[in-house]
């Protein structure tokens, strides 16, 4: 590691998520370059930027789908990518990752529902198999969540019988069933037909207003990001080029790159 110092634990009252000097490379390509990013508990942070700017990588590293090459990620005060051994931080082993992963839920662009299971079974699977809930408890929890996303009546349908918007709402319920503290939304409306995007966004609005969840959302829906976010981060070239409240980023961007990106995106819509 570099000259940075990384505490073994963060102080109480610290951010829910902290990226400290995080670097990610694919061979010679630097995807994220010494990223520092803090997300407060219950904060809703939108990540926008051109493709290849590293925004999805941020979520994938948090979900431990990717390893990191330098730096430390903390979740809820504890290191995620590392663990403490004899007073030092060492690379996290499988069981530490497993423990920490329980804090995080993720919703994917392509839903990734289990096609051989009904909506209800999709939601119940992990609570039963991972958390060890009884079938009854898991079913009750899952039905409540399917009701929250407005799909209680579809609980016995397989994904192939559901529309894209419905599938994505089931995927949200499935992630919520694990009671994560941090929810990651990775371009959750990008694969949807325009007419069903609204129903998914409504569910996210509801989550944001009624649930205490820390959310990181990578999105191309600028209007939605502006409406819902506490903070917007504009990624460019593997780091945050500009961040701030949505009014500032969308209304009065300071960075030339942000201005260019936003005018290009808004022109296209």
């Amino acid at each position: 590691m570099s000259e940075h110092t990384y505490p073994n634990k963060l102080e109480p009252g610290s951010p829910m998520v902290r990226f400290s000097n995080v670097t990610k490379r694919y061979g010679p390509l630097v995807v994220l370059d010494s990223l520092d990013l803090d997300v407060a508990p219950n904060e809703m942070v939108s990540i926008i930027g051109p493709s290849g700017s590293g925004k999805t990588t941020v979520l994938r590293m948090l979900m431990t789908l990717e390893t990191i090459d330098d730096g430390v990620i903390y979740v809820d005060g504890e290191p995620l990518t590392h663990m403490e051994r004899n007073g030092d931080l060492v690379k996290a082993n499988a069981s530490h990752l497993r423990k920490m992963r329980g804090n995080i839920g993720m919703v994917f662009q392509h839903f990734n529902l289990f096609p051989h299971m009904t909506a209800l079974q999709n939601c119940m699977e992990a609570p039963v198999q991972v958390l060890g809930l009884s079938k009854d408890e898991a079913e009750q929890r899952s039905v409540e969540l399917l009701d929250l996303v407005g799909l209680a009546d579809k609980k016995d349908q397989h994904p192939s019988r559901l529309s894209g918007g419905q599938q994505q709402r089931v995927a949200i319920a499935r992630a919520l069933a694990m009671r994560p503290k941090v929810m990651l939304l990775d371009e959750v409306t990008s694969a949807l037909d325009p007419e069903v995007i609204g129903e998914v966004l409504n569910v996210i609005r509801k989550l944001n207003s009624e649930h205490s969840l820390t959310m990181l959302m990578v999105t191309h829906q600028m209007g939605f990001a502006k409406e819902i976010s506490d903070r917007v981060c504009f990624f460019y070239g593997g780091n945050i080029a500009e961040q701030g409240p949505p009014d500032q980023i969308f209304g009065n961007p300071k960075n030339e790159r942000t201005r260019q990106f936003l005018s290009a995106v808004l022109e296209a819509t």
Partner: protein
Amino acid sequence: MFDWRWDFTFEILPRLLWATMNTLLAAGIGYGIALVLGLVLALAQRTPYWPLTLIVREFVEFIRSTPLVLQIFFVFYVGPQFGIRLDPWTSGMIAIGLHYAAYLSEVYRAGLDSIPKGQWEACRALNLSARRTYFRIIIPQALPASLPGMGNYLVGIFKDTPMLSVIGVAELMHTANALGSETYRFLEPYTMVGVIFLAISLPTAAGLRFFEAWVRRTLGMSK
């Protein structure tokens, strides 16, 4: 010249049918071994430990590139030189089970490879263990794609059981040979062997297609 004797045919039929039981037993046990061992061979090639992958890969290639009858001889006749003395049945089941396990592992491998990366990532995100990821999510989805190949090899192993006659397993072919050398009539025994094989293979193949459709429906994955 063509003197088919019905009375002789009916006389030998009970012995042939009795031997058919052994053929079915051999095919069933051999296939059972192959189903389980094939999965082990397929999964062993997907661990993060590359030496294991390499060894298993080479082993599978080796088995697939050498004749079954040689493998049967090897287990039965060469084994004793190393102090491994097995009866014909055990030797035969090991050889044919292993042989078809190698083929089935390739069928499983293709099925497992067909599962999109997103399914693995969803399992990771939901914190499912590797074992549960495989047995509850990945394998059930890989199954429909693997079933046609698995069915082919079920019929295949059934048709290969006559090879066990070379080490004296009293299956259908072995019994037909014995009847031939006892009576010097080969027409009826061998013809009946063919008829019996057909009578079992054809309905099995049809049944397998129904089974495939049923599995797809049950998993909610019908096309």
